[in-house]
């Protein structure tokens, strides 16, 4: 836990879970340490990249990922337009079809919070 008085944002919880999964998987693979963690984060999750990196820098101490680097693939939000019957990439965080201007609540991609892979050392 971080020093009292500093508000812990959700990036910390997300990073904490990612590190736990990374350590479990690295151990299962017979690794001694983790060299790189690769995540996939959707734009719609509201995750702030800087906050995620900050959380990683603090939380990795004392774990198998102590010397690891973090690589994040950010996924833009893709929505489905019911009128045009096609997917479109949203600009910013709004899903409004660029052709017909219909707002869409059908978010097809952009909510990902995934750990993709690790690079580990034996």
């Amino acid at each position, binding site marked *: *836990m*971080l020093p*009292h*008085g*500093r*508000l*812990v*944002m*959700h990036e910390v*919880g*997300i990073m904490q*879970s*990612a590190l*736990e*999964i*990374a350590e479990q*998987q*690295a151990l299962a*693979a017979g*690794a001694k340490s983790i*060299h*790189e963690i690769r*995540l996939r984060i959707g734009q*719609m*999750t*509201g*995750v702030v990249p800087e906050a995620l990196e900050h959380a990683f820098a603090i939380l990795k101490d004392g774990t198998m990922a102590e*010397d690891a*680097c973090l690589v994040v693939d950010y996924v833009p939000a893709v929505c489905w337009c019911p009128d045009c019957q096609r997917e479109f990439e949203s600009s910013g*965080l*709004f899903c*409004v079809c660029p052709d017909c201007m219909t*707002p*869409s*609540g059908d*978010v097809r991609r952009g909510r990902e*919070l*995934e*750990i*993709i*892979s*690790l*690079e*580990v*050392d*034996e």
Partner: protein
Amino acid sequence: MCLECGCGQGHDDTHAHSDDDDHDHPHRHVEVQQSILTANDRIAERNRGFFKAFGVFVLNIVSSPGSGKTTFLQKTIEKMKDKVRFGVIVGDLETDNDARRLRTTGAPVVQISTGTLCHLDAEMVARAVEEVNPKNLDILFIENVGNLVCPSGFDLGEDLRVALLSVTEGEDKPLKYPPLFRFVDTVVVTKVDLSMACEFDRKSALNNIHLVNPKAKIFEVSAKTGQGMDSWCNYTMNLWSQHSPKL
């Protein structure tokens, strides 16, 4: 930064490949492909099953601080408590002021002090729910920590997620914090009795909510004057009776 492989480590004796002449990359690839919030989602599903088994309808109430969550819940409970047995789980960073105010309704209230954590997660709810005795409940409100960013990613096992937007916050709030407003079922515009004083642009607010979440059911209420509260209470009541048809 290691210039040989760009791995972010400096060149020193502990760096595995720094003295490796042919620079065979020693790192092994491990494919994971797993959701990061698997643990939370699993507990949330367990919560959902647990609530369902007891016939409890659960609402997760999210909003920014000061949007009127506590007063809104207090009035909702008071209006319906003759027909429905309520329980409340309140998440707050510090203090139990909200919990104390809600206890005046007579409903069992459990306070979760999250300390420095800005949202509730499924595990906290799982621990708290033992204290409200779900056997004796029909509807459980979870008053999330006042925060428009963080709670949006964390499933608690609720049946309905409700976002509150007070007229004092301004009509562009849904545009500033779309992830939270997008992934809710219902938006309740609160403190409408102050609309005039705040020069709240109702049309633009409803438009903005619609833009971010076209499917959201919208209510406009004032817990203070009672305006719109009947319509909200009927809606909740209907959802609860559909959820627990045996009752």
